[in-house]
Every structure is written in C-alpha cells, then in structure tokens.
C-alpha cells in the first residue's frame, strides 16, 4: 500500500473547481456587497443616530428613533393603508395572474401575441407607469379635457360613472391596485405558467376519462399542483407590496389626504423632506424585519398546506 499522495501544483489549485467558482462569483458578490450589503449596514448604523442627511456629524441615540416611531401618530395612519394595499394587491394579482396563466397555457394562434401583451407591461418602470396612468385616470375638467378612462365611459354612454379616480378617496386605492396589477400580472403569470407547463398531461387525460370538466380539472389538478409557484408568487408579492413607492408616489403622492400614503412614502417624506434620516432608517429596518417575518410565516403556512395536500 504505497499510495503516495500527489502534491497539487499552484496551477492545479488555480484550475480547481472551487477556485474557478469563487472567481466567477467575485463580480456578483462585489456588486451585492457594494449595492446591497454596505447600504443595509449603513442604514442599520444610521437608525441608531440622529443624522439629518446634511450634517457631517452624527450622535448615537441608541433606540430613540425606534421609540419615536411608535409614538408618532402618522405611523398609525400609514400602517393600515400599507396593509390594505398589500392585501388587495396580492390577492388581486394571485387570482388574476392565475387566470391569465390559464389563458396563456392554451395552444392557439393568438397565444403568442397574448403573451407579448401580458408580459410587455412588466418591462415598464413604475415611474413611467405612474405618468401613463395619471393621464388615463385624469378627471373630467371639460368636454375636451378629460382622462382616457373617463372619455371611454363617456363614449359608451356611461357618463354618469365618470369620476375623479385619483381624487376620490373611495376609488383611489382600487385604481392604484389595478395599475399595479397591469404592471405586474405578466411576471406573476409567467411563474404560474412555468409551473403549469410542468404538470403531466396524463393527469388531465385521466381526469377527462373520469368525467371531470374543465373547471374541476383546473381546481383539482392545476390549482393544487401549482403550490410551489403560488408560494413564490405570494412571497414576491408581499415583498413588492411592502416595497411599493415609485408608482404610488407618481400617481397620487399619497393622497388624497393620506388615502394612499403607504409606509415607504412616509419614510421618504420624513427622511428627505423632514430631515430625519435616522428615523427613516429605523422605520426601514422595522419594515424589513416585518417583511422577513411575514415571508417566513407565509412560507411555513404554505409548506404545511403542501404537506397536507
């Protein structure tokens, strides 16, 4: 047994899989560190200071910002608005995207153009969506000067339904969510679609032989077997809803009053407009932790659902 271990040369070391992987990962890790990890750590640091965004000096204030946050009455207005938006947005997208994915999963001549129609909006940034839909929802200022939606209603004889969609506190959240749905439905549907296409066709054939109709098959096979994508979608939607800022800021600025003032608008308002960067960072930390907890709980619940089924 004279097994002699061959000593690895430096060249071997350089060409080994581990080192090659590390080298390929360096750019990604560098970008991640510079654009995510360091800013997050900086935010954590500033959340414990009284930095106003201008001063070169900061004072360590421990948990003062965290305490101030929970005694601020504004926060109690923004939390229900954020939850309302997040729930409405997530529920609408989960179901609408499911039906869109069902439609796009069928083979027909119009499937490809339809896919383009639904996937294209997700390429448009929130800022542009905000500008675009602000014009669409514009109120009736005069017979010539009105938004596209109101003009459409007028043209089809439904003038009585014309609204100042973004100025009415009872309609504003609905149109904001619908705008978000238009923007994100492609992404959500795409994830469903990928999952749907992996469902074995034999299951549908067997169900058809057993006499199950289209909707029964959709519920008992498609809906039940897309659990993994439902979980991914729900997690992404929760995160995106809690991150919502650009589109809402452009569309309504949080108004009318505080009807659409989600937490991120408040954070930016206090941090930049109110020169309370420390407080804004503290709030961001709380939102991040809340999102993390929510995602973990959702994941656990959906995992249990998957196991039960």
């Amino acid at each position: 047994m004279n097994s002699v271990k061959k000593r690895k040369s430096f060249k071997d070391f350089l060409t080994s899989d581990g080192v090659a992987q590390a080298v390929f990962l360096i750019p990604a890790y560098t970008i991640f560190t510079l654009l995510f990890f360091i800013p997050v750590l900086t935010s954590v640091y500033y959340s414990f200071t009284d930095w106003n965004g201008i001063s070169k000096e900061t004072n360590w204030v421990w948990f003062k910002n965290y305490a101030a946050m929970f005694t601020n009455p504004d926060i109690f207005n923004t939390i229900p608005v954020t939850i309302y938006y997040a729930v409405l947005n997530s529920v609408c997208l989960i179901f609408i995207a499911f039906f869109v994915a069902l439609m796009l999963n069928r083979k027909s001549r119009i499937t490809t153009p339809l896919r383009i129609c639904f996937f294209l909006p997700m390429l448009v940034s929130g800022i542009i969506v905000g500008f675009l839909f602000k014009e669409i929802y514009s109120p009736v200022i005069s017979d010539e000067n009105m938004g596209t939606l109101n003009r459409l209603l007028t043209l089809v004889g439904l003038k009585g339904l014309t609204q100042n969609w973004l100025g009415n506190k009872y309609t504003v959240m609905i149109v904001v969510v619908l705008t978000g749905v238009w923007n994100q439905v492609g992404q959500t549907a795409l994830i469903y679609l990928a999952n749907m296409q992996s469902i074995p066709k034999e299951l549908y054939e067997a169900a058809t032989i057993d006499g199950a109709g289209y909707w029964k098959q959709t519920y008992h096979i498609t809906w039940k077997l897309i659990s993994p994508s439902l979980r991914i979608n729900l997690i992404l939607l929760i995160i995106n809803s809690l991150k919502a800022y650009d589109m809402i800021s452009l569309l309504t600025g949080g108004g009318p009053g505080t009807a659409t003032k989600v937490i991120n608008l408040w954070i930016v308002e206090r941090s930049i407009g109110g020169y309370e960067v420390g407080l804004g960072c503290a709030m961001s930390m709380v939102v991040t932790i809340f999102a993390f907890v929510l995602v973990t709980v959702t994941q656990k619940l959906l995992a249990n659902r998957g196991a039960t089924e």
Partner: protein
Amino acid sequence: MKKMLQKLLVAMMCLIIVGSLVACNGGGGGGGGKSEYAGTTIELLHFWVDADDVLQDIAEEFYDETGIEVDVVFSPVASHLTDLNNRIQTDDVPEIFTMWPGPTVPPYIESGALANLSDCKWIENVDAATLSQCVYSQGGELYIAPVNTAFMGLAYNEQIFARNNLTAPKNMADFERILDVLKADPEVDYPIIMGSDCLANYVYLSCLSNLYQDMPDFDEQVNAGTTTFGNEAMTAVYEKLYIDWAEKGYYNWETCVSTDRMSKAAIEFLDGNAAIMRIGGWDMSILNELNETGTTYKMFPFPAEDNAGSVLAAAGEAFAVSAYATGAKKGAAMEFLDYLMKAENNAKICAAIGSLSPIKGAEIKSNPVLESLSAYLDQPTRGWTVWPVPVQNILGEAYDIYDAKTIEAKKSALKTFLDNMQNAWMATLEE
C-alpha cells in the same frame, strides 16, 4: 551700436514683464483684477432653468470687474437639495447655492452648513418684511439672502373680462358679482379653475385675505394654541369656498381633489374655458409655455370683504454661502453675493424667473402681469404659513365636504374636517 541694441533689448524685456504682470494681475488671466481674491474660482449651484443665461452673464461681468471666476452650475429643482446634501457629504460643497426660505433652512443652519450673512452690506436694501421671513435664529442672525418675493393671486383672462365689461374686483362682494356674470357667459365652463394641489393648499390660501382681515394674527394665534382651526372666521370663509361657491358652480370641485393638475388647469384657462385661475408667480412660466392662443392675462389679489385684498407675498428663493468655504474662497463668495444682491443684477434675475424683487431700487423689465399685481403692493402684503405635512394632509381630505348631499351634511363634514386639522396641528406641536 551693440550697447544700444542691448539696452533696447533690456527695455523691451522690461516692458514685456511689466505688461505681463499687469495683464495677469493676481493670476486672473485677463480679469479686471480689482479684487483681493482675483484668481480664485468659486461655484454657484442654482435651480433656475430660466435664469441660467442671466447668471452666466452676471458671472462673466463679475469676472471682468474682479478677476474672480464663477462656475455657474444648474441643478434641477427636483434634485437640488439631494445634490447639495450629497456634495456636503463628499466635501465638495459649492461656495454659493440657492435655497428655499421656510422649513428647509433651519436643518442647514443647525448642521453648520450655512455661513452667517448678518454683517452683509446689502441687507439695508432688502425689504424688511421679506428679510424678516429669512431670519430663523433667536439672535436674529441671517443665513440666507432673499432673491425674490414669491407671490400668489388670481390671474384673469383679459379677453373674457373685456367681453363681459368686467374689471378687477374691489372687494369680495364685487368679486362674487363678477363670478355670477362669468357664470352666465355661455363660453365659460367655470368662472374659476384652481389648478394644482388646490385642496391641499390653494383653496385654503384663496381665503386668506378674508381670514386675515377678520383675524390679522390668525397664524400666531394658531401657533400659540389660543385659537383653533374651527374658529368662527375660519369656518365662515371655508363655508363660502367649500360649500357656497362649489354649490353655485363657481369652480369645478372635481378638478380640485387631486394633485398635479396645474398644466391641465392652465390649458383650460388659456383656452378660455375658465376665466380666472389661482396662480403663484412660479406658475407663470407654465402658463407662458402653454400659451399657444395668445391669451393675455393679468392678476389681482384674493379679495377681502372690505377691500381688494392684499397680495400674498413671501420670501421666494434665496442664496446661501457655504460655511465650509474658507480663506479666499469664502471672501470671493461673499464678494459675489454682494454683486448678485445689487439692485440691477437682482432685477435681471427676477425678470428672468418672473418674480418680484425684494431689493429697493430694482427695476424689473416691463411685465404686464407683474405690473398689474404691483398696483396692489402698496397695501400691506403678507406671507403665508406653510403648515407641516400632517396638517397639509388633512387639507387634502375635503372630499367628504363636496361629496355630502345636503348643506347640513356638508357643514357637518366641514366641522369634522376643521377638527381633524386642529388635531393634526396639536399632535405636531406636541411632537
């Protein structure tokens, strides 16, 4: 002969050296070289797209006179403060920069970013009321130099007024008579259009002349907590604007309950669908840009019960000198600020941005709109309080007043609205 040539050569060399020294006095490279800071280069960071050319010209003239070079750099309004803050953090602060008087300034003073301007000579030439709005410290120190006086009032379409034989109102009753006449004009959809953010601020501001006539110290009383937003005077003007005028159809409240409608309102006004429009001086550039029909307009103040009202005027924009500038840079910046605050230079800037000047003796080039409003400036002008964001948010929640079906329900909604505003204000005070 050789000696003479040598002497001539030496004399010529001396002349060249002396000439060079004169030309490059202080290193100005062609500047007038009259300043002890000649040869210094400073930067002016400003947010006026309309005044950029004027500022470049002033900087060139300043260079010719002093030998101090000024880099005039434009920074868009939307990102101006962010740009400035970033540059403060990276130790690349421009020596002079533009600011907005109001709640923006104190954090910069507290952070030690602004140089004290209390000893500047130009102060004695500035309108006292405007100057007082730029003082933030207990000791009365001045950290910003007011450039212009922002104003707000009602613009009226001259053609529509002429067609209906109307002139600017003399008081509130006269104004309401004018609104009735305009309402009867078949070519006018609504007598008044409010424009952007009108619920958040401007409907409220429209009643200020009236309110201040009844309660001259309204702002002070609210600040001291000795009155509420729901006091008798405030309720009366709000009932007039939010209920009475909306009911009579003097304006389309549908256009009032959302933000950023300025350009749409401007089109309605310029097309003659609305005869009067609430505007601030800063809105004039939008009106002028959109004015393709050649509509001419002038302005009058928000009328009060007993008089034509007073122009709402407050310190508009200002210059500040960086506290981080030291030595020659600081001296040069102070010298350039003195130059900018000269009446003739200030007049050029104010003319470019379409605003009134707070500097005595500044004659702004003929502008019919400004001239029409200037006629009212002899009467006491006053600024307006910019309420904190939570109060402004409540100002934007007037939908229930408009949406209520009966007058009683509207009054009840108005009471809730004013109570909410009061609660928001008290919470802010406690905070």
